[in-house]
């Protein structure tokens, strides 16, 4: 296991940081979060034309850059820091990774290049209104029909579900239970019988949808009844990516709280000179740095496909969830009254922190998952 980034990785981070500082300003975030799709098509093209981010962890044979999860983690940390509004998590992290894990070679060759080029958008529909994040909670039924399949049921909490051109769906063979009978399918976003409704999100920077399937025609991805393992892997990898995104946001908040404490005068001195502020800042630094260490280890373990990876992904997700939310709460508190206003930017990150806390499983669920992954 490595405990430092290479010089190239550090350089990559700097490039991204500068790019997002220019393009994803709080003003830009505020503008985009009020739009229906939540992101800007031209900016999304830029992201890929200039930086090729949609293919970071995709092998070169499919048009990707051939890097791994450490580099993908860096992208997400920087995106989380700048609260980048883009369908990146849906298309690159969830759908692309699911295809890499679960699809046949021919399907990868067909599906990945347009996603990697950023020309098509995909998402992964796996959770349902029950709010369970694991594969076993799947109820959407896939019935064989003339060489293809017909999907019936409801998916929810689907990231960018309304805008996606392609929806990868986790569904089960009718009558199957638990981890058995699960398969992945691809469905066109405009397929007949598919009704997509934008849900009103608590975090307006991340658009989520409810998808209703009524006899929707779908194509099998990978092996029939064989999706349990590739989906579990995808979920762990996405959790590790989300942990990176969260620690990026947490660090940004921590810094903004520090800047404000240094500027804000009360009782004739900067509030940063009060010990109560210093100790809070020291605690925030500790919590964020610990969560960063966990996110970095999870990314490293994902990159090496380490046997401990599923446990470390859950560990990092739980740690980042707690650290991000706690940092957001402290940041509002340090700002005082202004921190509770709409005009102050803190709430943008606070809402992302709250939403990310439960997205892909809350900390309690991931802690239990971690212990089980370790065999306890």
């Amino acid at each position, binding site marked *: 296991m*490595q*405990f*430092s980034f290479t010089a190239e990785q550090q350089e990559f981070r700097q490039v991204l940081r500068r790019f997002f500082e220019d393009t994803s300003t709080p003003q830009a975030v505020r503008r985009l979060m009020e739009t229906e799709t939540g992101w800007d098509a031209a900016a999304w093209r830029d992201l890929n034309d200039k930086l090729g981010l949609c293919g970071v962890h995709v092998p070169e044979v499919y048009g990707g850059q051939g890097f791994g999860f450490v580099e993908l983690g860096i992208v997400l940390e920087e995106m989380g820091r700048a609260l980048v509004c883009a369908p990146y998590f849906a298309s690159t992290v969830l759908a692309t990774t699911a295809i890499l894990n679960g699809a046949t070679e021919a399907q990868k060759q067909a599906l990945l290049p347009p996603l990697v080029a950023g020309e098509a958008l995909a998402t992964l529909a796996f959770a349902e209104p029950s709010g369970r994040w694991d594969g076993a909670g799947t109820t959407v039924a896939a019935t064989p029909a003339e060489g293809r399949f017909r999907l019936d049921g409801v998916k929810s909490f689907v990231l960018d579900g309304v805008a996606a051109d392609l929806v990868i769906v986790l569904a089960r063979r009718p009558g199957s239970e638990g981890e058995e009978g699960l398969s992945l399918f691809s469905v066109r976003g405009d397929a007949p019988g598919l009704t997509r409704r934008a849900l009103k999100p608590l975090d307006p920077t991340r658009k989520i949808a409810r998808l209703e399937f009524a006899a929707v025609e779908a194509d099998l991805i990978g092996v029939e009844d064989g999706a349990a393992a590739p989906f579990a892997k995808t979920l762990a990898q996405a959790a590790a990516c989300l942990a990176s995104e969260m620690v990026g946001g947490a660090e940004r908040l921590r810094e903004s709280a*520090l800047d404000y*404490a*240094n500027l804000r005068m009360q009782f004739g*001195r*900067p509030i*940063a*000179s*009060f*010990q109560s*502020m*210093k*100790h809070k*800042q*020291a*605690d925030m*630094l*500790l919590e964020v*740095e*610990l*969560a*960063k*260490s*966990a996110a*970095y*280890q999870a990314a490293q373990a994902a990159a090496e496909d380490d046997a401990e990876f599923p446990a470390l992904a859950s*560990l990092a997700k*739980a*740690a980042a969830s707690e650290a991000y939310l706690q940092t957001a709460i402290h940041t509002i508190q340090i700002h005082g009254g202004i921190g509770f206003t709409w005009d102050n930017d803190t709430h943008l990150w606070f809402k992302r922190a709250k939403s990310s806390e439960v997205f892909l499983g809350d900390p*309690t669920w991931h*802690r*239990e998952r*971690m*212990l089980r992954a370790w065999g*306890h």
Partner: protein
Amino acid sequence: MTESTEAALRAEVSAWLQANWSPDQGLVEWRKKLVDAGWGAPTWPKAWYGRDLSPALAAVVDQEIRRIGAVGVARTGIRTLAAATLLAHGSDFQKRKFLRRSLTGEDTWCQLFSEPGSGSDLAGAMTRAERKDGRWIVNGQKVWTTSAHHADWGLLLARTDMDATKHQGLSFFVIDMHQPGVEVRPLRQMNGHASFNQVFFTDAEVPEEHLVGELGGGWAVATTTLMHERRGADGVGAVGAGASTTVREGRIYDEERAEVATTMEPYKWYPQRAGRVDLVLKRAKETGKIDDPVVRQEIAKLLILARSAEWTARRARAAQALGRPQGPEGSLGKLAASHVARAAARVHTLISGADAMLSGPDGPEDGIVAEILISVPAVSIAGGTDEIQRNIIAERVLRMPKEPGSADDRPFREVPKNAVG
């Protein structure tokens, strides 16, 4: 480091060890050879027993010494802090007199900083050193002094000027612990152990040439000592790491084991102080509490904290090894270790239930759990309280402004102090 330098170095060390190492010699006799050859402390300057090697290359030397089963220099106890401090601030006379004997283990050291009246505010030390007939005469009391009862020398922070400000009136000395004016009494702690001492000075004497650094410059010297102390408190590796753990036969190994046993005796409860995270899962399984969902959550939180703290310390070390500027992660180790220990004590209580009321042979793990519970409170105090650590992080890492009025420019004589006695 290039591979050729590394290979050449490896060959050189290896050849030297082949010619000089044998377990059938006295420990000190061997260490003198090792130190004089520059292999004992290879990162040190060439002028002072070292070879000016980078930490990465010094690791190669260490590997070779271990590979052949040879014994290294004395690395346990306060002598390491003494050596680091004298290397940075000592006069040539002091370096000649103390460095070699510290590495060979001939001398044992203690650190005389804390006083009953000054703990967190170390610079408020009131032990006086007054110049008289070409000597320094020391009067006062120190506390929390590990190993004072068998130390040959002490690193002493004492006040040489009551009319200077708090920090500027301090000087740093090396004091001979074997003299009539020095009295050492053990200090019993709440966990029953007596790992520390109180040291009383009554007209104890220090020769002039044992003043370290400038007169009135003692605080800067003490800061170096403290920095080295805190660096070792991040929870990775125990005090005295580097001592051989495999049991080997031979006179030199017997002598080394005896040395380590003596120096490490006061630290024997330190694993318990750190919370014994390693015991948690075993205890949870033995008691069946592993099936309790509430306990599982608490165990998981503890393991996440402990692993994250360990990784954070490793990040700091990796950055240091690469010669990169230290990030904030380097200052967090001690505070993180406190959190881990406290969380561990809480989880041990949760797992033990009513048995947490029992100690000794009646208590869980033959009293180990009880010892954890009554030792953990020390972690967030010893070597700098959590509150002081937070101040350091806030002011030095985050560059937050100091408390107004904390820069006390009154003569120390006029600063309000604790009543003594």
